């Protein structure tokens, strides 16, 4: 059965890749800051959650190969490597306080060190197709080494239309054609927006999508196989059969939830 080689582990690792739109429009206001700041924060947190999920005692077990690709001014592989290597090499660690339940109904303030791997950035256009091509290179290399493993997961966070739609579609289809013996690569697209209405999460058909760009992203998002439908439900989504890994006009909460679903839940890390 496809998409069944779970849970991932050190002898059966997975690949999780995040693509981040760093085009100029990511400077738009969003969730009390700007889209670029939110995207960077969400990605840093997602990576930290993966690090924690791979922590055993004081060690980080290499259960996941991680990659983050930024696209805007240029195409940049911001991160690429085994999770232990990435865990030990953030670009900085910010000291802060955070409040946690004290177990007796109250809150207690704790020291916390937040690792930062990617910084917010927003310039130029949206070379999404080139980012898909860069992701293809990473995924192709990885599946050669792990032909029987659970297939790669790619999550694309974007706010705008790509520079070259036809090229982008072709590159996305090529990326989705990468496969292991356990199934095809899964591409999920998360469209980040300030729109207060029209949020769509994991739709199974495009008939309710009135925006041409929404239909474009729908068509380059993978249909979620049964194990991912279950994983999405456990992350708080309500997907139907044939749902696609796609968010449109999504707010901060949904984007964070998709990152959790697409990485931790899908790969059986939590």
């Amino acid at each position, binding site marked *: 059965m496809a998409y069944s080689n779970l849970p991932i582990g*050190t*002898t059966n690792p997975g690949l999780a890749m995040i693509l981040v739109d760093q085009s100029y429009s990511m400077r738009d206001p969003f969730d009390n800051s700007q889209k670029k700041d939110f995207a960077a924060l969400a990605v840093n947190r997602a990576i*930290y959650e993966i*690090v*924690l999920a791979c*922590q*055993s*005692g*004081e*060690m*980080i077990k290499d259960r996941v190969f991680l990659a983050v690709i930024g696209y805007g001014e240029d195409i940049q592989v911001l991160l690429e490597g085994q999770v232990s290597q990435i*865990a*030990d090499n*953030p670009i900085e*660690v910010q000291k802060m306080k955070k409040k*946690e339940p004290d*177990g*007796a109904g109250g809150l207690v303030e*704790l*020291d*916390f*060190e937040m*690792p930062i791997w990617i910084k917010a950035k927003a310039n130029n256009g949206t070379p999404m197709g080139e980012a898909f091509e860069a992701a293809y290179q990473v995924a192709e290399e990885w599946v050669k080494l792990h032909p029987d493993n659970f297939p790669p997961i790619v999550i694309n966070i974007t706010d705008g239309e790509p520079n070259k739609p036809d090229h982008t579609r072709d590159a996305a289809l090529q990326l989705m054609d990468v496969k292991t013996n356990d199934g095809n690569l899964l591409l999920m697209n998360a469209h980040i927006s300030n729109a207060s209405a029209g949020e769509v999460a994991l739709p199974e058909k495009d008939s309710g999508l009135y925006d041409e760009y929404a239909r474009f992203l729908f068509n380059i998002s993978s249909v979620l196989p049964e194990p991912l439908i279950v994983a999405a439900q456990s992350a708080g989504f309500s997907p139907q059969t044939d749902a696609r890994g796609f968010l449109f006009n999504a707010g901060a909460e949904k984007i964070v939830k998709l990152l959790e679903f697409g990485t931790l839940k899908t790969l059986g890390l939590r």
Partner: protein
Amino acid sequence: MNIETEIFLELIYPKKGEDMADCQDARCNNLDKNWDIKRFAVADGVSSSFFPAIFSQQLTEYFCCSNDPINLQLFDKPENWKKWLVNIQGNWLAEVAHEIKQTKKYYVRNRFYANDHAGATFVGLEISRDNKGDGGYTWKAMIIGDSCLMHITNKNEFQSYLLKSSDDFNYTPKYFPSRYIVNNPYTPDFKTGKVSPNDIFFLATDAISKWILDAREKKDKNRFVKILPMGPEDILTTDDIDIYRNDKESPLENDDVAILGIKILDSNEKELIHE
């Protein structure tokens, strides 16, 4: 009658693919201390917990070797087990705090800030003269979780504590926590019994305990004799562990292994043999 104790099997071995430094199991005894009470212990640190190897090591060493009255009188006042544990928790915290000062890993420090803790299952065995009774010897044990004590009497009767069957093992055993936890529901069990010459005891962590119980249930004599004191060439070795882990029918689960095998000897007979 006087008895002596002898360790005929002592083995600690990490799971396949890992080094001894990664092993979270621990074992200890106090036979080098010339005390009247003989103590033996094994502990199994929960691998996903926080600094479990330090905790399992400290549990076994404190139980076997600390001359703190609260430790020496543990079986006279079993209700004091929480005070006993608090001492070890203090030792664990001091050693971990030292490690935290040295570490460059923010994710380790974050777990420390969040008051994360280690967990460990534990079996501690004491063999001592029963001064209140008939002057014979008794065994007393404190056990928590799925590390097991097994007792084979000189009449070949077999008992295991706390788990009785290979089906009893699951992935959520009770454990001692290395930090004080409000309303900690995990209470150890205390067991006791008589000791006679030629009795055999095993203290073992979960994977090897399960394997032994499975061998008994299947009446697999070839496996079972590997742990018995038949002769030095027959006793279980780390090479055997590697082989049994790859066994197709009854594989030993790939987990850390700690086992102590203890034989009770009649002192007089032992002297005769040595003469």
